[in-house]
């Protein structure tokens, strides 16, 4: 019976995750490792794109895992773990973004669309730094992480309508900032 259950779980990632969560509640270390291994890369990638800093992103991902494991007992639905984990991560990233001071944008003489990938990344970083944390997070989750509106709403813990309006404002502001930056050259 147990073997059958584990076979079913292996075929269905959601069921497998559910099984890991219930095993973690019983104190299973191996399940803890499995869950970390499954979400590690995506979580760090999301945090990296939100914060634009790999080391900070790793810290945030670690903190998110620890916080999620601490609260795992309070989780009503075991299937909700991944959403809960990403929500913690996005919230922690937004807290850090709010603390960061927006840097003054200074551009060099190279055209952004003619520059290399590194220059483009630096420019995007500087433009994103000028957006408020909520708009920046919405834009990054949708455009860079390619998440659906539902996922963005779940991770940011806001209604879909709010995601739509924030995304519209964020796109508009980003476009204006980019046009201004190009126009200055």
């Amino acid at each position, binding site marked *: 019976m147990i073997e059958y259950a584990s076979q079913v779980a292996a075929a269905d990632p959601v069921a497998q995750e559910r099984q890991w969560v219930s095993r973690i509640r019983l*104190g299973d*270390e191996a399940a*803890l*490792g499995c869950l*970390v*291994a499954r979400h*590690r*890369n*995506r979580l*760090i*990638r999301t945090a*990296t*794109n939100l914060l*634009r800093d*790999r080391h900070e*992103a*790793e810290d945030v*991902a*670690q903190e998110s*895992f*620890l916080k999620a*494991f*601490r609260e795992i007992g309070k989780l009503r639905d075991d299937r909700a773990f991944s959403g809960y984990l990403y929500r913690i991560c996005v919230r922690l990233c937004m807290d850090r973004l709010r603390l960061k001071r927006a840097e003054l944008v200074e551009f060099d003489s190279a055209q*952004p*669309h003619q520059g290399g*990938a590194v220059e*483009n*990344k630096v*420019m*995007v*970083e500087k433009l994103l730094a000028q957006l408020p944390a909520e708009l920046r997070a919405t*834009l990054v989750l949708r*455009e*860079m992480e390619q998440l659906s*509106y539902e996922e963005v709403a779940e991770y940011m813990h806001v209604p879909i309508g709010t995601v739509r309006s924030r*995304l*519209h404002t964020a*796109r*508009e502001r*980003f*476009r204006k900032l*980019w*046009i201004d930056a*190009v126009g200055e050259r």
Partner: protein
Amino acid sequence: MIGEKACVKFDRLVHERSDRALSQKEELFINQHRAICTACAQEEELSFMAFDMLREAVLEADVDSGHFDLRVVRLAKVQQAKESVRYWSPALIGGAVACLAVFASLKLASFDGSVKKTHPPVGQARRVITSFPDLELPNVIHRNP
């Protein structure tokens, strides 16, 4: 097809195009307006370039996976241990002992002693002669007469 309203509609549809499939009518409107309004066409091109650059600026996770996993699992174990009662029990016992000690000292401090001022002892005090003559009262030198 042209005018401020048309430009606003064009802008809205260009935004919406990235989130949903536009209808044929909407696509036709965009194409026609783009052909007529140079400013909107230019804005659309710049917008396209800006978001293209944003999508290209994605940073990939670059992490030592094994090290990260071990660290998180280890920290989670420490966290779990800290939260368990066994971890806190010595501290709880220590705290209880400290509370008892404080309570006992407060009780002692408020205790008046065996002889109360309102009840002086009845009888005489006796001088006990010791085996050390130097300590007898007549031999003690008083500095202040």
